[in-house]
């Protein structure tokens, strides 16, 4: 089984982003960038499947700017076998990324695509589902467990109020949720080895995909701050307000 793991280079999760004073976007100059944490989980899962003998090769791919090559190296330092960078403008939309990935799937013929459930920058939570739709493959989103069965996989998904397990025929698309695993640290020797693993660079245009944007940013704002409310004198008064004023109980 061959696994394709699409990963995204995003603002590091420890960094507090700030909106530019002119409201044109988020200020990303000099900000630390890292692999999207959910994608790190996807990479880890793919490597574990290979280590268990359920997979033979793990190929990581990123669609984005040239520096995404660093992110791909990190994935290879964790254990991915090789990498493909599809160069494009910064932060393409999920639909365009799904189309690029579809083109790569045609070329690489993986049996399974695992990717993070969402990127922590645009929080779209869409690329996996969109890719599955375009490929007409089955999908299992928000995975907390993946197991290889005879001719397919069983995936446990996190759903509202619990979990459910689905059986998917291969090929399939799975998106990783937080509890799927705890990613390993890349060791120094593996970081050095990763520098020598193959990394192929393509241009989005070479794959014949229209990267045109469907969404235009009108403005970006700071979230509205909360204001202090009222102090209430007693528990009874609080219950009354929660019932009749806020209507939340």
């Amino acid at each position: 089984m061959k696994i394709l793991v699409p990963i995204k280079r995003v603002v590091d999760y420890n960094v507090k982003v700030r909106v530019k004073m002119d409201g044109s976007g988020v200020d990303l100059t000099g900000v630390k960038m890292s692999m999207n944490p959910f994608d790190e989980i996807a990479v880890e899962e793919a490597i574990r499947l290979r280590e268990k003998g359920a997979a033979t090769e793990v190929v990581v791919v990123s669609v984005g700017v040239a520096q995404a090559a660093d992110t791909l190296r990190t994935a290879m330092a964790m254990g991915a076998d090789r990498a493909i960078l599809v160069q494009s403008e910064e932060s393409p939309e999920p639909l365009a990324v799904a189309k690029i990935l579809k083109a790569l799937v045609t070329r690489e013929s993986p049996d399974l695509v695992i990717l993070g459930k969402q990127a922590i920058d645009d929080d779209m939570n869409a690329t996996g589902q969109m890719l599955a739709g375009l490929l007409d493959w089955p999908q299992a989103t928000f995975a907390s467990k993946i197991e290889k069965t005879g001719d397919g996989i069983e995936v446990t998904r996190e759903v509202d109020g619990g979990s459910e397990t689905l059986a998917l025929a291969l090929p399939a698309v799975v998106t990783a949720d937080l509890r799927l695993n705890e990613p390993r640290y890349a060791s120094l020797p593996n970081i050095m080895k990763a520098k020598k693993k193959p990394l192929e660079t393509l241009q989005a245009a070479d794959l014949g995909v229209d990267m045109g944007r469907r969404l235009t940013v009108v403005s970006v704002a700071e979230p509205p701050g909360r204001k202090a409310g009222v102090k209430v004198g007693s528990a009874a008064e609080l219950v009354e307000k929660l019932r009749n004023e806020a209507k939340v109980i």
Partner: protein
Amino acid sequence: MTERETMTFDVLIVGGGPSGLAAAIRLKQLLPDLAVCLVEKGSEIGAHIVSGAVIDPHALGELLPDWRDRDSPLTTPVTDEDMYYLTQNRAFRVPALGLLMPHLANHGNFVISLGDFCRWLAAQAEQLGVEIYPGFAAADVLIEEGRVAGVLTGDMGITRAGEEGPNYAPGMELRATYTLFAEGCRGSLTKTLMARYALREGADPQTYGLGIKEVWEIPADRHRPGHVVHSFGWPLDDHTYGGAWLYHFGRNLVSYGFVTGLAYSNPWLSPYDEMQRTKLHPLFRPIFEGGRRLIYGARALSEGGLQSIPRLTFPGGALVGDAAGFLNTPKIKGTHTAMKSGMLAAEAIADALAGKEAEPVSYTARFRSSWLHEELHGARNIRPAFAKWGTRRGALYAGFDAALLRGRAPWTLHFTHGDNEALAPAASSPKPAYPKPDGKITFDKLSSVFLSNTNHEEDQPVHLRLRDPDLWRPVNWDRFRAPESRYCPAGVYEVADAETEPRLVINAQNCVHCKTCDIKDPDQNIDWRTPEGGGGPNYPGGM
């Protein structure tokens, strides 16, 4: 216990600040085939760097003569500068600054983000083939047969209880013929080395400062790129060394900060609150009105100067940069001195390699005959004069020493005790009345720490420990009323149940790695050990 992996290099450098990076670059310039590895505990180069900073490009010009053609971040030349003596409501500009304080003259210098500068230096080093690994903390020194043989990197994935967690990865041995320690002020391994090789013998005790910094974005009409302001006097009393800086740089950015000399005696003093309230002074307040605060950080610095520099070499390695204490305190600059020390150490390593010597001894001689020594020698009496005679008389002496004697005084003033010995009992010390944060110009500690992007993996052993927990109550609490809760700029130390059964709560996760607790704790009972690599602040570009 899993077997540790080993990697071997010719030279290993611990710490990715200006001294370590300059040493790495110089080594590869001298010996291009040398295997040079640099490890940095921050998640990336620059993540743990805090400085003003105004940089004197002297050392940079020696290291990379064509730096102007390399798209460097030295883009804001200093245009004009003022030094003020403050009283609570007034500011007196020091006249004829260039004459009275010639060491301060900033002509030809640049206002920079030292973090951005280090990121740039790292890129230059990588081009020369230096292997740079951020996110790896050197946790212990490897010493074999009396010689430093490298370091052990910290284990990753150890749980809070000290057990191997699910993603446990053992640290590894990084071995090298020579190891340079470029950890910055009060490095945790440097401390070990100083004890092991008695490096401080014959040197004055080191004296430190705590620098706390904010970066602000201010309205364009108030921004004067290249304008440099320093102040001394209020709000500190005459016996406490320190003052504020304010540098305009970049695109509407202002670097503001405050250094408090850690030899202060009043246990109620809070460097954080001194820094906050100084922003309310009429000299500074108008700058901040209508602006917004972007970044916050803090770091201790070594202020002792020449008298406090320890022996620099030992078998298998050397100390460089602020780990040794090369800061030029009166000049308020340490980047060029740190870089120069790294370059000198690199040259000494080349000598030692050629002569197959265990200890790069020529470093000391190279230092003594360099402009670095001359510069520090000229400045040597100024900081101790403040320690001896207080701020006002110290400043007078400084003018006399610098302007009239030109640093060539036939005497040398000394430091007599460590900063940890300076505290007076809480009961006999006055409590300063610090204003409450207004949420516009002044802020509480935790919302400040929030802007340092500090994080530590939660499930790991606490990296700040009391060597003897029983000492806290009688010493820190009974005598000094927990000064750590005030000098820590990150809210790591809190006293719980103060009214009933006081106990110390250590919120190690907030730690910005400034090292002040390791310095100032009265009985040196707080031991700062390096946490899991990649932890700590994540200072963004502009810091």
